[in-house]
């Protein structure tokens, strides 16, 4: 049986071999490798749509994996196409690593064993270090070092937690856990939360995220914010909802605490930023908190709301970061420069606009329906005071989201001259339009 993961794995090997062949033939141009990579990504997306997930010993799907893998591959294709237009001369290593990272993300989503989960997470992480480093900015060394160091710590914590769980439960497969020795098991669960929360950027394990997001190429940031973060959140869902069925009120309270801390911290920090990219980085952390709060309910209703929410913010975040790349190239770094945006590209401005509306959660974008499902799940289980607190924080976030929108100042779109329109920006705009359609059409998946 053929699956997206097989296609991707074969693709990684194929691209490496092809690259060796290219070096052997002394061909300088590496365009062909890029196109092959792009082809493999599209092929894997189609395979996913047609054949669904794979079910083998360590990797088995649950009911949502088809949907999640589908949108992860969709965003990956869009981001890679963007990267291809943005830096057509990038090294072939980037292609291999990108494929590797996408493979890792899809494997995290269907992992059913701790070892396979760990390996899949490492696959994303190792590829991400190089992707972050490849943008030639001033802060890349610092950001990459921070990322590598903190990721190593998180992996060590994760392995420690897994070993404790093994000590307690005697197995590493999800779903086979029974007769646990309580103390090491619960300790292990707690440590695994910490290990996975690094990837999902849950406060207080988020400290690497703003720097890394800010210093890398915005297309890579779009990948990290959407695909990599989706993988982290899905790993948490997989382990704590489908794996252990730990529906104890204690775990629920810990999750609620983490989620609320994430939302509050990230929102407050976002509101004091004056650099657009850093603001968006903090806002994406707040989004992860909202997705996590659905999981904290630890029931079907909450988790399906959470998964739709992950989809909604992944698409919106990918859209805003890809759109921001066009502006970043024209040196729009601070919020006060945002009024130049319409002059550079109208479509990218519209994309940024719609993306921010969706992150803010305004109808008729999918961000609104995601928040609607989350709130409805919370209210259905009687968390009225929590919903009030979330409404308060959303109201607070109005300030900075509305601030970006207002600073864009669309009122002189037509009167102003275009600054440096070219074919490359035109091609990027096509991808943005595709994602914009997804922001509106995504509502049909709300019942997943």
């Amino acid at each position, binding site marked *: 049986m053929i699956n997206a993961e097989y296609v991707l794995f074969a693709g990684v090997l194929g691209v490496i071999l092809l690259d060796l062949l290219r070096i052997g033939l002394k061909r300088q141009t590496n365009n062909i490798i890029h196109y092959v990579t792009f082809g493999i990504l599209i092929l894997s997306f189609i395979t996913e749509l047609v054949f669904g997930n794979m079910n083998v010993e360590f990797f088995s799907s649950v009911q949502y994996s088809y949907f999640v893998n589908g949108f992860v591959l969709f965003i990956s294709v869009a981001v890679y196409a963007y990267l291809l237009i943005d830096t057509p001369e990038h090294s072939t290593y980037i292609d291999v690593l990108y494929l590797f990272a996408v493979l890792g993300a899809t494997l995290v989503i269907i992992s059913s064993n701790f070892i396979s989960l760990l390996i899949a997470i490492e696959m994303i992480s190792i590829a991400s270090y190089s992707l972050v480093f490849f943008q030639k900015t001033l802060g890349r060394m610092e950001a990459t070092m921070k990322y590598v160091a903190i990721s190593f710590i998180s992996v060590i914590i994760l392995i420690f937690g897994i070993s404790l769980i093994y000590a307690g439960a005697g197995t590493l497969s999800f779903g086979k856990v029974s007769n646990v020795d309580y103390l090491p098991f619960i300790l292990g669960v707690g440590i695994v939360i910490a290990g996975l929360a690094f990837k999902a950027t849950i406060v207080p394990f988020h400290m690497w995220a703003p720097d890394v997001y800010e210093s890398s190429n915005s297309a890579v940031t779009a990948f990290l914010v959407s695909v990599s973060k989706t993988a982290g959140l899905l790993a948490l869902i997989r382990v704590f909802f489908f794996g252990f069925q730990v529906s104890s009120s204690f775990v629920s309270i810990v999750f609620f605490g983490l989620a609320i801390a994430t939302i509050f911290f990230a929102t407050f920090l976002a509101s004091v930023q004056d650099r657009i990219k850093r603001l968006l980085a903090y806002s994406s952390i707040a989004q992860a908190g909202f997705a996590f709060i659905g999981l904290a309910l630890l029931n079907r209703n909450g988790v399906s709301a959470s998964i739709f929410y992950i989809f909604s913010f992944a698409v919106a975040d990918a859209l805003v970061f890809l759109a921001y790349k066009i502006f970043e190239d024209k040196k729009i770094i601070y919020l006060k420069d945002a009024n130049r945006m319409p002059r550079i590209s109208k479509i990218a401005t519209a994309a940024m606009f719609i993306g921010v509306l969706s992150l803010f959660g305004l109808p008729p974008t999918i961000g*609104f*329906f995601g928040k*609607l499902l989350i709130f409805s799940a919370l209210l259905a289980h009687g968390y009225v005071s929590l919903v009030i607190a979330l409404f308060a924080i959303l109201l607070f976030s*109005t300030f900075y989201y*509305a601030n970006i929108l207002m600073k864009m100042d*669309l*009122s*002189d779109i037509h009167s102003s001259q275009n600054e440096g329109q070219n074919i490359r920006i035109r091609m990027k705009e096509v991808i943005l339009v595709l994602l914009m359609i997804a922001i509106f059409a995504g509502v049909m998946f*709300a019942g997943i």
Partner: protein
Amino acid sequence: MSISLFLFLVIPAIGIIWLYINSLIKPRLDERKIVLSAVAATVATFLVGLITGFSGFSISLVSSIDFSFSLGLNSISIPFMLLAVIVPAIGLNSAFKEIKQNATLFYVLFLLIYMSLILLFVSTNLISLFVVWEVTLISVFFMIAFWGEEETRHKASIKFLVFTQFGSFTLLAGFILMFLYTGSFNLFVIRTMIGSVPAWVSYTIFGLVLMTALIKMPIFPLHSWLPDAHTSAPTTGSVILAGLLLKMGGYVLLLFGLELLPNVASIIQVPALILGVFTLLYVSLVASAQKDFKRLVAYSSIFYMALVFIGIFSINGYGESGAVFLMVSHGFIVSMLFVLAGILKEKTGTRDIDKLGGLAKNMPFYAFFLMFAMLATIGVPGMSNFIGEALVFIGGYMTYAFVLFSLAGVLIATNYYISAIKRILFTSLKKELQKVRDISVYDILQLSFFSMFILVLGIVPGILLNSFSVTL
């Protein structure tokens, strides 16, 4: 053959798409012609629909959370639809004069607001109602933020958005609670099921809807966004804001508060009436101290919404129909006043009452319409506000006599309006105003339309009063 309500989505949407295509091609057609034809087509559809009747429309989008796009008339739709279809259409003339920068985007926003306002009053699914509710808010926010007065627009628009967004959240929370306890977002299903929900839920829902109404109408402690938003908004924005957005608060309070949960309403009747009367007196005193003419009109619109609030909370047929009637009538009058304030700024360059004087000499037509609008707003018999005010006072007196304290507010309102008229129109003409010219023929036409509706509703109120029924 009846008119499908779906047309009110289609026609403005065609206008928006046409505007967009027009911005791409060369030579460009004048945007004003496009928006005018879209609005005229909508008005014509509405008028035909009034004769032939309207038919509903429904399409289910996500069945698992009962999200469908469904339109249909409810008992109080028609008067609000009249307001939503006519007022922005007449107000359009101000936009034609005022908007120079990037007209395409402005008219796209305008048509978006126009479409969603009409759909708001005929939505029978709460989620589609909330969607159009938010679209109007956000579009008005951008209208103020991008085309408002240069110095104050950013601050005022953020203030507007934060306040009204809070109102939206409480409304959304109320809607989710209704869904959780009745299993449906459909208005009519909820109406049949609402009797079976637990008492605390019905209290919470009522409290949330009331909070939304307090912000949107607005009522005393939560009113501070309105004068700032009005002073910074372009005239068209003010017309939409005062003529329609404030009425959305009254609409949801009637629809989800009074008609759905009358027993909860009767519990908080006394505090609500006291709050209404207090707001009315307080605001009329604040308005007396205003120097900016537009700010004065903004405060007086809070005054009339407080009167509507009193009418709604008198919980009887007179009060409720008075409230609906007053909302419609005030929608026309306050829009006319804002248009007049816009003309004042356009012709003389200032809205400061102290800097004006003696304009009646140079601007006889303007003086006529200003006096007409002011007499209408203080409720002279024969004009529409009189009927609404009389019904509200009758309804209020039938429940609690202390409501008649608000008559003192009407006296104060009369005082500040008369003194404003005196200072703007009848003192000696200032030297710097010698060259001011009278209003153009388009302005006269626009103001005559407003006057016509005010007079018709005042002389034959039956046509409006028979078009809705208040069920209690």
